[in-house]
C-alpha cells in the first residue's frame, strides 16, 4: 500500500510542470545570471583592507585597556587588522547602519565570564574575521585564567609555556573551508530558494489529500487506504523529489558554474536536502490551513517562500543583518536564513557545531510543521465539501 502510493506520488510529482520550472529550470537560470553578474565584481574584491569596527565598552578599565591594546596590535599582511572607534551603543549602531563600520563589538569580560557579542551589517569575510578574532581573544583569556588557576603555586614560566602551547595550536587551525566572499552568499540563498520552493510540492500533498479541497482528495478519502499511509507516502515521495532537485541545484552551481562551496560538499548536499524537506513541510502546513483553493494557496506559498528568501538576503545581501538588528529571533526561525547559514557556517568555520545547530533547527522546524499539517488534515469528516 505504502510503496504503491509512494511510487505514483513520485511519478506524478516529478511530472508536475511547476516543479520542473520552479525547482529545476528557474534556479539554474537564476544561478547562471548571478554568476554572470557577480563574476567581475568578485575578482575585484579580494584585496584585504583594514576593517572598521565600532566598540561599545561596558567593562572595567583593566579589561577595556587589555582589549584596546590587543585590537590595536593585530595585523594582517602588515596592515592593521582593525580600525576601532570606541563609542556608545546608539552611535555604534548608527555607524553600522550608515555603513561606516563593518561590525559593532559589544565588549564582554572573559576574565569575569561574560562573552563578547557582535552585530554585523552583513555576513562575509569581514564579519568572519571579526568573529574569529573575538572567539580567539575570549579563548585565550580563558586559557590564561585556567593556566593561572591550574598552576596554583607554579612559576610564571610554567604558565606562559602552557599558554603559548595552546595559542600555537589554535593559531595553526584553518580558518575557513571555502569561499567566504559575500557574493557566494547569493548562491547560498539560491539553494535556500530551491529548498523553499519545495513548499509547492508540499502544498499539492495537502490539497490532494483533503476531500473538501479537491475531487482527488474526495476520491482518496473514500478508499480503504488510511489517510496516514497516503499522506506519509506522499511526503516521503516529495522528500525524494526535493532531494533530486537540490542535488541538481548544488551540482550545477558547483560543477558547471564553479561556485566554491569548500571541501565539505557532502554536507552542503545534506543541508540543501534538509532545507528541501523543510520547504515541503512548510507547503504541507500552509496547504492544510483553511479552505482556500489551489491557486490562492499557491500564491501564498510563493509569496511566503520569496518573502523568507528576501529576508535571508536573496535580493539584498545585507538584509539578513538588518533583520539581525531589529528582530534577531526571526533569523533563528526563518527557514531560508537557516538553510543559507548552514552552508555558510560549513564553509567558514572549522568547528562543525554551528552547522549542526542549524541542521537540528531545520529538522525541528520540519517536524513541527509536518505534525501541524497532519493534525489539520487528519480530519476524517468535513462540515461541507
Amino acid at each position, binding site marked *: 500500500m505504502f510503496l*504503491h502510493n509512494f511510487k505514483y506520488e513520485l511519478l506524478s510529482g516529478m511530472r508536475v510542470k511547476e516543479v520542473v520550472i520552479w525547482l529545476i529550470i528557474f534556479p539554474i537560470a537564476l544561478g547562471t545570471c548571478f554568476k554572470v553578474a557577480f563574476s567581475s565584481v568578485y575578482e575585484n574584491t579580494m584585496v584585504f583592507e583594514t576593517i572598521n569596527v565600532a566598540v561599545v565598552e561596558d567593562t572595567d578599565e583593566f579589561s577595556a585597556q587589555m582589549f584596546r591594546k590587543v585590537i590595536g596590535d593585530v595585523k594582517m599582511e602588515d596592515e592593521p587588522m582593525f580600525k576601532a572607534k570606541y563609542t556608545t551603543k546608539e552611535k555604534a549602531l548608527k555607524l553600522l547602519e550608515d555603513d561606516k563600520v563593518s561590525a559593532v563589538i559589544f565588549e564582554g569580560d572573559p576574565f569575569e565570564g561574560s562573552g563578547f557579542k557582535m552585530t554585523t551589517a552583513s555576513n562575509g569575510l569581514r564579519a568572519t574575521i571579526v568573529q574569529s578574532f573575538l572567539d580567539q581573544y575570549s579563548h585565550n583569556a580563558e586559557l590564561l585564567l585556567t593556566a593561572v588557576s591550574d598552576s596554583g603555586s607554579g612559576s610564571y614560566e610554567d604558565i606562559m609555556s602552557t599558554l603559548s602551547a595552546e595559542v600555537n595550536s589554535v593559531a595553526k587551525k584553518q580558518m575557513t573551508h571555502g569561499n567566504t566572499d559575500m557574493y557566494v552568499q547569493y548562491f547560498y540563498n539560491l539553494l535556500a530558494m530551491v529548498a523553499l520552493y519545495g513548499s509547492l510540492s508540499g502544498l499539492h500533498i495537502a490539497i490532494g489529500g483533503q476531500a473538501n479541497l479537491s475531487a482527488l482528495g*474526495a476520491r482518496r478519502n473514500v478508499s480503504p487506504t488510511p489517510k496516514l499511509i497516503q499522506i506519509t507516502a506522499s511526503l516521503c515521495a516529495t522528500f525524494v523529489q526535493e532531494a533530486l532537485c537540490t542535488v541538481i541545484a548544488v551540482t550545477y552551481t558547483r560543477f558547471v558554474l564553479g561556485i566554491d562551496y569548500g571541501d565539505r560538499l557532502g554536507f552542503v548536499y545534506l543541508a540543501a536536502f534538509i532545507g528541501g524537506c523543510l520547504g515541503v513541510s512548510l507547503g504541507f502546513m500552509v496547504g492544510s490551513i483553511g479552505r482556500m483553493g489551489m491557486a490562492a494557496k499557491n500564491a501564498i506559498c510563493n509569496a511566503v517562500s520569496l518573502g523568507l528568501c528576501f529576508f535571508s538576503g536573496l535580493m539584498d545581501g545585507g538584509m539578513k543583518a538588518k533583520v539581525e538588528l531589529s528582530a534577531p529571533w526571526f533569523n533563528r526561525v526563518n527557514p531560508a536564513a537557516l538553510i543559507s547559514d548552514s552552508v555558510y557556517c560549513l564553509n567558514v568555520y572549522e568547528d562543525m557545531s554551528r552547522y549542526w545547530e542549524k541542521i537540528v533547527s531545520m529538522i525541528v522546524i520540519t517536524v513541527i510543521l509536518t505534525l501541524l499539517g497532519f493534525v489539520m488534515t487528519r480530519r476524517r469528516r468535513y462540515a461541507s465539501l
Partner: protein
Amino acid sequence: METVVKISGLVKSYKELTAVNDLDLEIKEGEVFGLLGPNGSGKSTTINCLLSLLDFDKGDIEIFGKKMTPTAYDIKKDIGVIMQNVAVFEELTVYENIDYFCGLYVTDKAARKQYVDDAIKFSGLEEFVKFRPKKLSGGLLRRLNIACGIAHKPKLIILDEPTVAVDPQSRNKILEGIIELNKNGATVIYTSHYMEEVEQICSRIAIIDKGRKIAEGTKEELKKMVKNTETISILACEMEESLLGEINALPHVLESSYEDKKLVVHFSGGKHNLLRVLDCLQKHDVSFGRVYSELPTLNDVFLELTGTALRDSEG
C-alpha cells in the same frame, strides 16, 4: 434480497439551510437505485454523508449491514465511487491512473493488473492507455473517471451525476456500462437531475426535493401517483371553442384547452382515450394535423408532487 444501504432519519444542515431533512432510504442488493432531484435538492449531500465524507447532524447509515464510519475500511473496499467532478492525476497516464486508484483497494499485484485491464476494456479506453488526461476529450475523460472508480470490481457503485457535460454518444456509452455493471452483480446508486437517464436505467427511484424524499418506488409506481395518466395534443385543429364542453364531457377527461389551433386534453386513467377524442372531432367535421399521445414522465410526477417542474427548479 439483502439490504445493501440503509439510511435512517438523516439530517444535514449548513448553518440555516437544511440540505437533507429526515431522509430514509433502503437500497437492496442488485438494484439500480436512482436518486432524482433538481440541483441543490440534497442528492450529493446525501451521497457524501453516505460515504462518511460529511458530518451530519442526525441519523444512522449502514452499508452491508455495518455502521458506516470514516475508518470503516472493510466496508470501503467494496464501494466504488464516481464523483461529479473528474478526479484523476493530470500527470499520470490513463493506465497509471487506473492502476493507482485500483491499488488503493487491491494489494495483490497480479490481480490488480487483471482488474486494470478489465476496467480499460470495459470503458473502451484501450487506444488511450498512454494518454494523459489533458489529451482526452470530455467524454473519454468521464470514462476514465468511471474506470478509476470501478476497476476494483466493487459490490456497491455510487455514481454522482456522472454524465454532466457529456455528449450524447458518451452518455449512452456510460449508461450502457452502468447497466452492464449491474448485470455483473453490482448494486448501483445513481444520482441525476436528468429524469430520462434515471427512467432509462433505474429499477427503483427516490425523488428528493429541498432535502426531503417526496416519493419512492419503481417508475411505474411513481407514475401511478399522478392523476394525469395521458396527455393528447392535436395540432392545426380548426374547431369552435364551444366544442371544448363536449370534449370535457368525454369519459376520464381531467381537463382540456384550446389555444393557437392546438387542442390539449388530459386524461386520468381509461383506455382508448385517443379514439374517443378523434371520433368527437370527426363527428363535428373538424380537420386537424398531427396528433400526439404522451404518457406521464417523472417530470409530471415531480410537478404534481411539488407544484414545479423538475427542470424549472434546476439551478
